[in-house]
């Protein structure tokens, strides 16, 4: 996907002024609420028109004020998954799923109901009405409905923010798999850094209606560490626990990781804030934290009045943060060896 947009739009005291060039299949749009993200979505989908400017997708002009081009929404083949499911209440699950499919030119129909229903686990729901489905089921139907219209680009406008935490991290794998499975590029819009880290590769960040250049998610996460209340969020992917007696023990970075988690948590992703990692220069004799990892500093970066430290733990990467004084006292520099202590309760299971 290649997107070029230079647009201006003003309404009610707010003005959006964006100049975007982006490519890739997993693009993120990041920004606080009121920063112009949703307006950008509407302009891309064609449900609103810019005051002036131009929008090109994969070389095709969708909007140009100069050439008087404005392709209507139904001609753009850009589907949206909204914050809430917004399913058609008068249609069954099947009717909702097929709404876009029926309106898609036969030549473009690459995704069909059978294979998609399988991936989204909707087979048993097809004949039901949509009003009695659970929140997660509804959002899955909404994802399916957008995918079955066989779009060339999928816009996801904060698709997770209306869901509670547990449901949110259940839906993410579905979002990732359908898009990967069928090769549909997407733009994921969110104000949550962790959702960005899970969903996107490169990010455009919006602030007060203007958009800065494209960066990688990693850069954005590191830059916002200084301002963030929760620090940098490390995402740790682990397999099945080796054993479990009160603490789950996972194989990670050539060693073992002790995580206090519920018994039924098998495998998946855990989050760990950079603030919950304590660094030691020498091996501390006795310590209450269950994890003491020997690691090597592979890089440092400044973020506000703090220093982010990139650690290499047996091939795995962790980001820890310390204040500047601590960094100089510990003589932290690339190649230095450190011990990282992490409490078993500092991890949170995501998905």
């Amino acid at each position, binding site marked *: 996907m290649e997107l070029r947009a230079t647009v201006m739009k003003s309404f009610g005291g707010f003005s959006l002024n964006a100049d975007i060039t982006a490519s890739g299949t997993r693009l993120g749009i990041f920004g606080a609420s009121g920063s112009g993200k949703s307006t950008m979505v509407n302009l891309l989908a064609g449900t609103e028109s810019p005051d002036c400017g131009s929008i090109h997708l994969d070389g095709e002009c969708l909007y140009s004020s100069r050439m008087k081009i404005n392709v209507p929404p139904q001609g753009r083949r850009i589907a*949206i998954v*909204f914050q809430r499911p917004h399913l058609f209440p008068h249609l069954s699950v099947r009717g909702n799923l097929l*709404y876009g499919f029926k*309106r*898609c030119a036969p030549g473009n129909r690459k995704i069909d109901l059978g294979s998609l229903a399988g991936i989204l686990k909707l087979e048993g729901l097809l004949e039901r009405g949509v*009003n009695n489905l659970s929140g997660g089921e509804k959002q899955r139907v909404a994802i399916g409905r957008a995918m079955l*219209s066989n779009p060339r680009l999928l816009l996801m406008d904060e698709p997770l923010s209306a869901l509670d935490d547990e449901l949110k991290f259940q839906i993410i794998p579905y979002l990732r798999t359908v898009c990967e499975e069928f090769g549909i590029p997407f733009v994921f819009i969110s104000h949550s850094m962790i959702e960005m880290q899970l969903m996107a590769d490169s990010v455009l960040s919006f602030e007060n209606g203007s958009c800065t250049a494209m960066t990688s998610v990693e850069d954005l996460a590191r830059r916002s560490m200084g301002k963030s209340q929760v620090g940098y969020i490390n995402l740790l992917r682990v397999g099945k626990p080796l054993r479990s007696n009160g603490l789950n023990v996972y194989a990670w970075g050539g060693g073992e990781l002790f995580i206090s988690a519920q018994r039924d948590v098998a495998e998946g992703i855990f989050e760990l804030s950079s603030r919950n990692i304590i660094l030691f220069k020498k091996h501390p004799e006795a310590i209450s934290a269950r994890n003491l990892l020997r690691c090597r500093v592979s890089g440092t970066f400044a973020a506000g009045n703090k220093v982010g430290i990139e650690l290499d733990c047996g091939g795995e990467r962790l980001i820890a943060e310390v204040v500047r004084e601590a960094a100089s006292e510990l003589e932290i520099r690339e190649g230095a060896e450190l011990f990282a202590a992490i409490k078993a309760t500092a991890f949170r299971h995501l998905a």
Partner: protein
Amino acid sequence: MTLTPVDMDAIRLSAKVAVTATLASLPFGFLAAYFLTFGRFRGKSVLDAMVNLPLTLPPVVIGYLLLLLLGKKGWIGSLLDQVGVRIVFTWQAGAIASAVVGFPLLVRSVRIGMESIDEKLIQASRTLGANWHDTLLTVILPLSVRGIVAGSALMFARSLGEFGATIMVAGNIPGVTQTMPLAIYEYASSPGGERAALTLCLVAILLSCAVLVFHEYLGGKLARRD
């Protein structure tokens, strides 16, 4: 209490006028409600005022204006006269009078139904490949059915009772344009007609009740479907 053949004619005629007026107004009422709800155009408030005007005008005024418009020398009447069609003092004139008077009631009800439709549903349908008239038929129409049912019932009931505009433009000819309210008026103003007038009043009450019950039944059925 018996109904004379003339009474039966009046009841039949009332039903015919009300059904015709309602059915003929439905597509126009639906479109007017659509444009007033979703349209963005100049002169929207003028259209709004035009649609609602019959609600506040005395029916006699409407009837008189229609008479001027549809009469032999009127704008429309003179055109129709050239092709040999006469509207005034026929039952069709009664239906037109009923349609004009009942139209704002229909549009208001449909509009209330349309305004409750989530705008995101319309956006969703557009981005899924539907053009505006496709969206109109497959999303907006089914989701405003309850408003349409309510509006039709209201308009039908209003048409059954139409008096002022009808008598101006259709007259009060027994068997031709004499609807129930006109027949009741005639009975009540002639000596000894009280009983016959009461009988027809009873029929009017029964018909109105039937319309309301049917409306409730249909509304309930639609609500259960959701």
